[in-house]
């Protein structure tokens, strides 16, 4: 990092010495912080046997696993449906017919601007739907709309010559889209699609708020158990690494796909203009970055 940005020169011996001192100080402060948190945990009795015994019981392990299964189930259904909806809306936005284009644009813009939770609550409370379908429908509408924009920008980014060549070969509109444009768009946009799926995975935890029996809900059940002295912090310490691990795994996949894409011979020869002073962010955010 040092020397690679506009901020610093390559440090000389005295600067390196100073940075080492800073490094030691910073490490000391961070370790102190960690030690303080550990002390707080021990001091408030978070490591007592009573609070950790529930995790040794088979019933509770099964409860957690069932919760995890339900989370993954909601994620799988929502991911598949939002991919389908995203494809549909993207095709709609690229349609040659103005009413179709406008309708698709309206749907996409509306659902992108709405908080997911408002949609889930609307479906759950106002339409009186079961928790799982409500959660899946909310996630599908939101992520489908975002994916539609991702795919649309992918199709628009395919070189014009590809479309023109396909038309020149006598392909029909649908054929051009299905055989030429979409495959290339999906390939180029795969990292962005996967990182949107990370968002969907993170948002399955909203199911907890509509009483869907997912992972967090299972955790809450254990945490509010008086028999084990309300093992709240232990529950958080058990479930958050699993959640974060799942999301990081998926993010890592996105990063890997995007790096492979950059290495592939078909995209290697693409010239990338060097960023000049005040140039916009090249390509915006890196495609594998998870979104808020």
């Amino acid at each position, binding site marked *: 990092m040092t020397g690679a940005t506009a*901020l610093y020169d390559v*440090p000389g011996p005295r600067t390196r010495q100073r940075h080492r001192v800073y*490094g030691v100080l910073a490490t000391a402060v961070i370790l102190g912080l960690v030690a303080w948190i550990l002390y707080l945990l021990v001091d*408030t009795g978070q490591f007592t046997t009573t609070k950790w015994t529930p995790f040794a019981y088979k019933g509770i392990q099964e409860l957690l696993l069932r919760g995890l299964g339900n989370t993954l189930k909601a994620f799988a259904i929502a991911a598949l449906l939002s991919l389908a909806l995203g494809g549909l809306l993207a095709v709609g936005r690229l349609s040659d017919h103005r009413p179709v284009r406008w309708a698709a644009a309206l749907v996409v813009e509306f659902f992108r601007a709405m908080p997911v939770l408002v949609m889930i609550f609307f479906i759950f409370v*106002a339409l009186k739907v079961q928790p799982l379908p409500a959660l899946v429908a909310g996630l599908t509408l939101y992520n489908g709309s975002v994916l539609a924009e991702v795919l649309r920008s992918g199709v628009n980014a395919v070189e014009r010559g590809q479309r023109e060549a396909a038309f020149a070969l006598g392909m029909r509109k649908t054929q051009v889209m299905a055989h030429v444009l979409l495959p290339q768009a999906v390939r180029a946009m795969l990292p962005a699609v996967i990182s949107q799926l990370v968002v969907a995975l993170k948002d399955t935890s909203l199911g907890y708020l509509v009483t869907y029996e997912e992972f967090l809900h299972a955790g809450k059940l254990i945490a509010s158990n008086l028999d084990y002295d309300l093992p709240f912090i232990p529950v958080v310490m058990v479930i958050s690494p699993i959640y974060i691990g799942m999301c990081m795994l998926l*993010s890592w996949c996105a990063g890997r796909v995007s790096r492979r894409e950059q290495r592939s011979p078909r995209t290697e020869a693409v010239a990338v203009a060097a960023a000049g002073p005040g140039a916009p962010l090249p390509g915006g955010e*890196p495609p594998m970055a998870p979104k*808020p």
Partner: protein
Amino acid sequence: MNVLTDNFSTYGAGFLGTVRLTVYASLLALALGFVTASFRVAPVGALRAFGTVWVTVLRNTPLTLLFFAVLLGLPRFGLVLPFDVFAVLALGCYTSAFVCEALRSGINTVPKGQGEAARSLGMTFGQTLSLVVLPQAFRAVIPPIGSTLIALAKNSAIAGAFSVTELLGTYKTINELGYNIIWTFVWIAVGYLIVTLAISALFHVLERTWGVAR
């Protein structure tokens, strides 16, 4: 229509709650994001590692889990604050990770030559940072920060489900009074649209004033 006029004070309180939550959490997120971004570009390895861990963990945490841990977990440490403060903390910390990444990529867009030129003119580190690097990074960073803050406003709905006074939470009160539930939600949706459109308009103005000339 009478759902809105009859419950104007409830909606108003909820709307103001959302705005307050969004403003405070944005300020916290911008401040924390700035600090972590400076850690992430610091020449000190320990600070860089801390920044990386902060960003990676928070970006991959479901916000509901974070709310769950902060609102129900911190009181176990004897830290008892109003729920609004906890909600601001959770939202601010979560969003700070995204702000940090936006700022960092903004700083990275400033070409190396700019800093080298500044230093060869004899500018100190502080001058290089404040006169050359940050102004350029700021221009590039406006659009991504804008979309991050819009996401924050939308995410603030989760606070409502954790009994913070907020726009989404108003549906319960109004529903109990027997008003049409569909229209209740329509007005809630309009409220959120007002907030998100206001933020996006603000950032359009910022971008027109200071943004990168395209």
